[in-house]
């Protein structure tokens, strides 16, 4: 059973010395169903990272609460995996050793089982031949794939991803988008995916939350249930795909107007 995420009136401000506090997030309400893939799209500074860190239990909210299932989030939950904007691989560990870090720290299963999972995920992400390389010997796209593999090794129930592909070129991004959906299909999981890229959001998601800055807030939520279920390269040429991109863009124009 994959638990839903309920965000109720979550607010966050940051104290700034000698000035009024920055309101990074105005009250946000959002429910992400168990097993759903939800993207958050919005311009820089609209509080996407802040919201993700609050959901992850890495940052306390100023007001409101986040629940995973029935549990209020107060600290990081071991069943939540995170992929940061930068790959954040430990530079002194090989790709394989980086993937084993969550096993060493959280011990979700035996070392042998953990190694088996890491091996399987390195095969799935096409990094098997690079398992003994150091992160600096990998391209940016490969590093980000390693970070995704690492997040998936403990078999998280919830995956939080903060612009994982923003540093990549369009071709690599599209390939990794398809790869990500395949990886997520391995076992149902709830995904919150932050991006600047509307095409990426439409391609990946069940729903898209549109955010706006000053103060950071969630505007429209766009439902993509009408898109074809088959999410592969063909979808990017499908008229419904373009319709949904236009709809998302329109939601932005309305929100920012």
């Amino acid at each position, binding site marked *: 059973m994959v638990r839903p995420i309920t965000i109720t009136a979550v607010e966050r401000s940051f104290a700034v010395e000698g000035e009024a506090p920055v309101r990074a997030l105005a009250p946000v309400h959002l429910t992400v169903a168990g097993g759903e893939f939800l993207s958050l799209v919005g311009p820089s500074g609209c509080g996407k990272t802040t919201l993700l*860190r609050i959901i992850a*239990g890495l940052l306390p909210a100023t007001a409101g609460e986040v629940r995973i299932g029935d549990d209020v989030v107060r*600290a*990081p939950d*071991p069943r939540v995996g995170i992929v940061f904007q930068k790959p954040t691989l430990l530079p002194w560990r090989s790709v394989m050793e980086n993937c084993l870090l969550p096993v060493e*720290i959280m011990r979700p299963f035996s070392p042998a089982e953990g190694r088996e999972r890491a091996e399987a995920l390195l095969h799935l992400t096409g990094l098997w031949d690079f398992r003994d390389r150091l992160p*600096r010997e990998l391209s940016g796209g490969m590093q980000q794939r390693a970070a995704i593999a690492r997040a998936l090794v403990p078999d998280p129930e919830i995956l939080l991803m903060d612009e994982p592909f923003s540093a990549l070129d369009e071709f690599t991004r599209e390939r990794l988008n398809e790869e990500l959906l395949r990886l997520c299909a391995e076992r149902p999981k709830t995904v919150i995916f932050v991006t600047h890229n509307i095409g990426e959001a439409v391609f990946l998601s069940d729903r898209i939350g549109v955010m706006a800055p000053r103060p950071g807030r969630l505007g429209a939520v766009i439902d993509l249930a009408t898109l074809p279920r088959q999410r592969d390269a063909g979808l990017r040429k499908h008229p419904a795909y373009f319709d949904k991109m236009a709809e998302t863009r329109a939601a932005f124009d309305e929100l920012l107007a």
Partner: protein
Amino acid sequence: MTPTERRQARNARLVTIGTAVVLIALWQTAAGLHLVSGLILPPPMDVVRAFRDGVIGGMWFEDILVTLEETVIGFAVGLVTALVLGALFAYAETVRRGLYPYLLALQTFPKIAIAPLLVAWLGYGMAPKVVISALLAFFPVYANTLAGFLEIDPAMVDLLHSMRATRWQELCKLRLPNAVAFIVPSLDVALVLALLGAIAGELTGATAGLGNVITQRTFLGDTAAVYAVLILLAGTGLVCRAAINATISAIRRFRPGLAASVR
């Protein structure tokens, strides 16, 4: 290597060797023609003879050992103190800030100036030399240890928090390996400073050690021997560097990633 690079490397080597040849030729000429007093500039052959008698003949064997021992003990004491204090102060922020003015004062203070006082307190034996040596070796390692524990990518700290790592796990899996990359490059500076401290202590007052040889021979007017000791010390400094470089290569072989950010 491209042909251009090869030519460049060869020319650089020519400059190195050429400089030595020119300097020795000038030296020989100046000394041979008695342009300069032998007390100031003895002929090269005298220095070679002194070096042979002192080093290869074993006359300074004891002194070399004493200086090396002081250097190594001073380095080790300074290193361990710096590692322990650096690691402790990285966590004890209040203490670190409170003691910062004193550490800064001690760091900028010319520590060699307290050598006579230390000799008066601790006598003519090894103790005062080891203290100065340790004091000099301490600071570069301390500063880099502190930086190694504190200058960590906040995203990596988030990563470990998100896995609910304990403080102990965070120390072992993140802060210690991160610190190694900062600490290792400070070691060769610290070792050279430890040697400097030992010699400075010996020059102040000693009964053995290469610094003592310098004092004695200067007093006797045996300048050639003094030059020989100086050449020996230059060689010792290079050996110290080589020892640290060997340590780095060993780390690199043992854990390539750990030395990844070293140099």
